[in-house]
């Protein structure tokens, strides 16, 4: 550890911090902190951290790590909650650009009904599965001629300068 002094151990509650969020925080902080993690046996994580040499010495390493873990946990929750919706919009974009008419979904969902959102997500997931099977991701790998372009009547060898 050279001159890097580690904090005492502190615990992150598994009920609040998913292990993925803790790992992500450790990864993200790699430039500033050394991080040691171990399971606490109750679904949570025991953590020790130390500021890396050259990092801002005025920072409290435990506070830094806790804040990053909190941010990562929030990101994880936002991502998990919206995975289906996000994939639906992206798939619609992919299919639209690939020449297939996307299904119209109107200008939005009914405002307050959670059940309606859940039902839609289920439909979306089924639709993604069905449409993904027809999507040709290799279109960009085709030649000009295969994609319907006019064949170039290139200058004959010897004709060009």
């Amino acid at each position, binding site marked *: 550890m050279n001159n890097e002094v580690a904090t005492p151990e502190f615990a992150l509650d598994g009920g609040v911090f998913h292990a993925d969020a803790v790992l992500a925080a450790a990864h993200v902080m790699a430039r500033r902190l050394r991080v040691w993690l171990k399971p606490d046996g109750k679904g949570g994580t025991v953590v020790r951290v130390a500021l890396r040499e050259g990092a801002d010495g005025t920072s409290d390493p435990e506070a830094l790590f806790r804040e990053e873990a*909190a*941010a990562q946990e929030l990101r*994880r929750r936002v991502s998990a909650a*919206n995975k289906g919706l996000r994939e639906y919009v992206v798939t*619609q974009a*992919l299919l639209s650009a690939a020449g297939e008419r996307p299904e119209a979904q109107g200008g939005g969902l009914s405002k307050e009904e959670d059940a309606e959102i859940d039902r839609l997500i289920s439909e979306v997931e089924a639709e993604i599965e069905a449409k993904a099977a027809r999507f040709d991701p290799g279109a960009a790998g085709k030649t000009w001629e295969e994609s319907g372009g*006019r064949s170039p009547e290139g*200058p004959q060898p010897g004709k060009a300068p």
Partner: protein
Amino acid sequence: MDGALKALSREKLPDHVGPCYFRRLGASWLLTNDWGHHARLDQAQFESFFAGAPDKESGWFKGLVDKGFVRDHLDFRGLSSRFARQHSYLWSGPRLHIAVLTSRCNQGCAYCQAGSSLANGKGADMSFDTARKVVEFAFRSPVPEMTIEFQGGEPLLNWETLEFITRYAREFAGTSGRTLRLAVVTNLTLLDDEKLAFLMENRVGVCTSLDGPAAVHDRNRPWFGGSAHASVEHWLKVIAQRYPDEPGRRHPRPNALLTVTKASLPHAEAIVDEYARLGLTSLFARPLSPFGAARRSWKAIGVAVPEFLDFYRRCLDRALALSLEGVPMRERGAGMLLTKILRNRDPGFTDLRSPCGAGFGQLAYDHDGGVFTCDEGRLLAAEGEPLLRLGSVFDTPYEDAVQHPTVRACAVASNLEDQPVCAGCAYRPFCGVCPAYNFAAQDTIWGRMPTNDRCAVYQGMFDLIFERLEDERLRPVLESWAGDGAPCGPECAGSAEG
């Protein structure tokens, strides 16, 4: 713990929170989403959005609704349309084709990233046979518009092949009904009146290097023929005087690239002023990349990330100040980011896409006909690492090259959804990683973003630009920079120079 993250104490995320990313910027928060929208929230608004019960009639909340941040008000059709426009490059194929006409160069730049040599051997030049194959290969791309960029070494050392490709490619473009842009990246020292006339007549954009006032430029770019700066100054003036824009006819305006070394650091403002003095209306400040001679002389000339970002901030602010005074000046790196942020468009910079443009956005052709995912891939090969070589124009079919497993690997490695840090980054909708850079700097095409200098540089640039966008005086200037393409095409700004 930060008060803004109290949301974590809740068992369930509020139902209204839609797909988004966030980042603290000073005292406020930046929200972005995959549809390319962004919003700034103060602390109270941020906490209210993620943890409390926001006032749904408030202006800021309605703004989030309009921008697709609120889960139960998503305009699926509009958002997917924005996403498709932002990622239109995914379906087009390689538009940028970099032809390395020679690996020879007549300058001895300490930071040369192009793997150039001073050797005079003609074996380092692209032959007519190879050039013909390169053009035919490039025109197999399924794109209605394309750019061929002449690189080196110093490409004017192989002038005959430059002429050959220009004529051959123009003829090809004409018969196949496609739009062709041509550009040459040159140090200008070998230009003469006849060559310049040819370039202008054939609408070949000129992109050169200018590292600042003579003392800085000549120190960075020694030339045995005298002052390289004097040569650049001479030809920029000649082009401006001899080839002004005329009604119905626009000549390509020259561009210049600024490579930032230790020697540049004290001179940020003077460098921008030098660009303005020479009649240039934009600069593109780039950090050194760990390729070629730059890697070997890093200790002497390399710039740490905080130093570069401080330099960049001063350049940006000087360019903004000049613009406010009525002197046209634009920092092109900022312009490209702003095009993404404010215009929801891809500026054509293949290094900053997700996935990156390696193989299906661009191809590079070495002087011997070797085909690479990008010019950086070619540079790696020059150092003995052929990882990003896709084949040769002589014996590799186009389809095999662009569907090469290496192209697929680069696409996967540079897809930000799959990058552990990038996946949750607020700048993800506007950013991109470079597998070739990652390999050169970190020995893996995936890279490790937490300790990746390129990532740190872009984070700093994005932070700065979003900060300046909050300034009501500067915002109109920054808006005018967005989408303002460079005359020789924004692509050439991203390529390593000779």
